[in-house]
């Protein structure tokens, strides 16, 4: 049936990067796993998500056009459902982090310079602002306005919840890395440096390897 096969014959143009749809899918899965296990909000991968959403849309359209060849349609549909699951889970996890760390996230957004890319998508940014306002309003109406006058403000320094960047994660190594500083010099332990060999799996604190996650040399598992 040529209608459906027309789909992948074209290059999936992705800002001029010639990545096949399969490669984008692979990257999406990695982004999903990394976001799932990282304690902190990672860089947003909206280009990958958007590309995948386009692919899904095209595939859905093609299926509609297909005749009652029930067969291919059900297989495509299953794949679509699987990909949708990954995308939803990824976005949900990000939103969960935006909600929990709303104050932190907005702070970081204020502090960054214009050249640095934002970790939030514009929608997430708006969501964070709205969420933060709602929570503050809620606190004020529920409790703060009934407090004695000098206790009516909440000190952000005392109340913000920050991600625990020292939490332990499992990772697998994609690219060989030498000399990763794992532990700082401290009073009873010297500094520890680790070589990461491709294919190894480790359990380690997130903080020392967070830059490796961002650049793709390791994937969380």
């Amino acid at each position, binding site marked *: *049936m040529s209608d*459906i*096969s027309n*789909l*992948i*014959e074209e290059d999936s143009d992705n800002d001029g990067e010639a990545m096949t*749809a*399969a490669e984008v*899918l692979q990257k999406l899965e990695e982004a999903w796993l990394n976001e*799932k*296990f990282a*304690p902190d909000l990672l860089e947003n991968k909206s280009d990958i998500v958007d590309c*995948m959403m386009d*692919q*899904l849309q095209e*595939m859905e359209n093609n299926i509609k056009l297909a005749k009652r060849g029930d*067969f*291919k349609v*059900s*297989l*495509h549909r*299953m*794949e*679509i459902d*699987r*990909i949708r*699951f990954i995308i939803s*889970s990824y976005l949900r996890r990000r939103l969960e982090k935006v909600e*929990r*760390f709303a104050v932190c996230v907005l702070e970081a957004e204020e502090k960054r310079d214009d050249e640095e890319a934002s970790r939030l998508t514009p929608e997430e940014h708006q969501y964070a602002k709205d969420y933060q306002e709602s929570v503050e309003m809620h606190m004020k109406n529920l409790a703060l306005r009934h407090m004695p006058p000098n206790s009516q403000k909440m000190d952000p*320094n*005392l*109340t*913000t*919840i*920050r*991600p*625990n960047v*020292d*939490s*332990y*994660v*499992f990772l697998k190594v994609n690219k060989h890395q030498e000399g990763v500083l*794992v*532990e700082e010099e*401290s*009073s009873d*332990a010297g500094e*520890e440096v*680790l070589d990461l060999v491709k*294919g*190894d*799996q*480790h*359990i*380690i*604190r997130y903080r020392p390897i967070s830059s490796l996650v961002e650049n793709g040399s390791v994937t969380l*598992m």
Partner: protein
Amino acid sequence: MDPSEVEFLAEKELIRVVPNFSQDKIYLIGGEIGPFNPGLQIDIPLWMALNLKQRQKCRILPPDWMDVEKLEEIKQNEHDSKYFTEMPSQHYMEITQLLLKQAISDIPQADVIRTLVKDIWDLRVAKLRSSIDTFIKSDTTHAKLNFLTLMEINTVRPFLTKSLDQMHKLKTNLHGGDMGNSTIESQSQD
């Protein structure tokens, strides 16, 4: 991570089937599959194979390692070695579970296979438990876990990560003293 999510990842593995229908090439987003010809073997992802099996459109061929002799050898190696040995598939547990549930008629000596795989799993998880015990008591701050499969890692994930987190907190508080009440650390979740 939920075990069903680990299974979701395992379902991407390719497996050999013999279809009883014919179909030309399918162009999935993840790659091309096919063409299908009745009686000719073809490799397809596990999720697709299970679905086709359910609709009685194919017969599943067990993977090479899902064989009584091979598994006995693997079990023996695992038993003899102090460390973890490499498993024939990163998803041996999930694949075995899925095939024995949904395609049991295609697996020769299914019961023996079920027992062998379970024994291998038990051996490895017991090793894992005792090495975790040593690891935590020894106060080391990181470890290498090659050859462990995702399902095994996922089984110990909550305990291991949380206890290491707590130990780290205790250690840093011991040295840093009061870091100020300013930041409330969140509990890390899965």
